[in-house]
């Protein structure tokens, strides 16, 4: 039988606020155990939540970026369950009237455009953190009440690759907006996947399984891939899929069912009487709309049209706002979009990756890179010398100097003086009489050999155009 998978993702994004969603405790990482707590986020009797306005702004901004309808009236609800990381015995979340409904996200999968629906976005508080030690468990409430957005997609994806690209595109949008740092390893971006399979062409969905604990970017596709295979195997063996929650185990690359008892959820949602309904005015929403930056997908399309770049280049260059900015700054200096793009993709990204640095901390600044590209184009510098300067900059040499200063101070000025070049060429021709003979009798390929010899003699500083012209003439015996 031919099967297809149906995949929807639920993404939790930790918001980059300074304080928690319902109290003034800090959200920062790295504080001592139970230091970022107060009566509100530890559920002490009588403590009341007060909503952080920044959380609402971030939720609206994210909703607008994902083309959602912002609900002008929305309410907070209590989700009731017992677990030691949840001091109140309920999580404040949104249920029937979330802040955003009905959006979409467009992105590329293998160069083809794809649009995935966004069902809803709601605000909620995070729980604390438990660690388990066999005989006992330990509870740290620093994360309790840290603000989260839950972004739920429609079940529009059919392959693990599509799910992975959706998640990458969503992360990129959140980073552009500055609402989340997107760090999956530290848990500020978390992903659950709903996966089912059905025979291709069937209209009804199969029974879905919820995959939890996909806490790293590389595991999203692997976990879904495994789960699809597991479900197809079961169906082919004539067994039924059980609706359940499964955890992904990255070490063994498989999913494991959670005990059904833990799963017997009955959250008994009801409106939280401690929080009045949230009402949003048009002015408020429009005010947030003005803060919307150019988003990754728009920017990619603009880069492709405005700079005539292949979409592949444009997609890579617009992955982050900083990288896109770097490119635009460098292009102003180089006036050569494709050349600049090539240097960024092949040289800069390699160096940043090796040095584990962000674009903002790049050892080679955008002006320097743009100048290198321009000087090569203008024939004032060979590619080899430019690469040498680039590597020196990457290694931390000449920091903050302009390329022109570096060239001047290090005697890297290109030799265009025909007399000097002629002298070198004469020397090379005299020293390689055999090759000259072969060249003259038709072995054109040897031209490259002569260029190489001349450049070597000139330590790469000969102007490539002048060297080429003169060499041709001299070899012809002119």
């Amino acid at each position, binding site marked *: 039988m031919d099967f297809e998978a149906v995949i929807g993702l639920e993404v939790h994004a930790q918001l980059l606020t300074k304080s928690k969603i319902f109290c*003034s405790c800090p959200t920062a990482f790295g504080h001592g155990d139970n230091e970022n707590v107060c009566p509100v986020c530890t559920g002490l009797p009588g403590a009341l939540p007060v909503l952080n306005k920044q959380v609402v702004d971030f939720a609206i901004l994210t909703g607008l970026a994902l083309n959602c309808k912002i609900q002008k009236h929305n309410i907070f609800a209590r989700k009731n369950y017992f677990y030691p990381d949840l001091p109140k015995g309920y999580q404040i979340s949104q249920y029937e009237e979330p802040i955003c409904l009905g959006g979409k996200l467009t992105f590329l999968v293998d160069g083809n455009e794809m649009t995935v629906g966004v069902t809803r976005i709601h605000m909620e508080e995070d729980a604390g953190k438990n660690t388990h030690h066999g005989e*006992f468990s330990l509870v740290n409430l620093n994360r309790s009440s840290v603000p989260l957005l839950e972004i739920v997609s429609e079940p529009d994806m059919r392959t693990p690759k599509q799910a992975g690209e959706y998640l990458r595109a969503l992360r990129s949008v959140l980073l552009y907006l500055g609402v989340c740092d997107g760090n999956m390893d530290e848990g500020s971006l978390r992903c659950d996947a709903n996966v089912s399979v059905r025979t291709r062409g069937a209209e009804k969905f199969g029974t879905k399984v919820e995959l939890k604990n996909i806490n790293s970017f590389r595991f999203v596709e692997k976990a879904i891939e495994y789960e699809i295979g597991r479900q197809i195997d079961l169906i082919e063996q004539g067994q039924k899929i059980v609706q359940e929650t499964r955890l992904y185990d990255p070490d063994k690359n498989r999913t494991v069912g959670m005990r059904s008892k833990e799963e017997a959820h009955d959250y008994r949602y009801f409106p939280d009487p401690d929080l009045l309904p949230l009402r949003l005015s048009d002015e408020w929403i429009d005010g947030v709309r003005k803060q919307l930056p150019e988003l990754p997908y728009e920017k990619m399309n603009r880069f492709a049209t405005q700079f005539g770049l292949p979409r592949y280049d444009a997609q890579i260059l617009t992955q982050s706002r900083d990288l896109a900015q770097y490119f635009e700054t460098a292009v102003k200096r180089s006036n050569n979009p494709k050349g600049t793009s090539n240097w960024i993709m092949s040289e800069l990204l390699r160096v940043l990756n090796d040095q584990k640095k962000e674009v903002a901390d790049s050892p080679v600044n955008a002006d320097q890179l743009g100048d290198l590209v321009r000087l090569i184009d203008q024939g004032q510098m060979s590619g080899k010398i430019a690469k040498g300067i680039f590597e020196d900059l990457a290694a931390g040499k000449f920091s903050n100097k302009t390329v022109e200063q570096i060239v001047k101070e290090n005697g890297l000025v290109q030799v265009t003086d025909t007399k000097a070049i002629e002298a070198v060429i004469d020397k090379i021709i005299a020293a390689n009489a055999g090759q000259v003979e072969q060249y003259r009798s038709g072995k054109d390929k040897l031209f490259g050999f002569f260029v190489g010899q001349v450049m070597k003699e000139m330590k790469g500083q000969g102007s490539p155009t002048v060297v080429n012209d003169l060499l041709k003439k001299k070899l012809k015996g002119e």
Partner: protein
Amino acid sequence: MAVSEETIRKIAHLARLELTEKEVQTYSKQLTGILDYVSQLSKVDTTGVEPLVTATDMAVNFREDKVEPSLSPDDLLSNAPDRSGNLFKVPPVL
């Protein structure tokens, strides 16, 4: 509206309450009585009336995103039955 003994057992479990068989019967009767009494409200014709979330017209209040001093870990843990360093120590969860 009868609240069955099975329902009583389920909500007791969700609230992590342990009930004797006798208590299950008692609460089943009592809660049935309470819900029957309250159900008189459903006789009111509410056609065209929006569901009410709160009784007041007020909307939620906000705070600015500012960090204020928190409780000290020692204050927080002063009522905890057991601790390990500055962490709550609880019976095993997993």
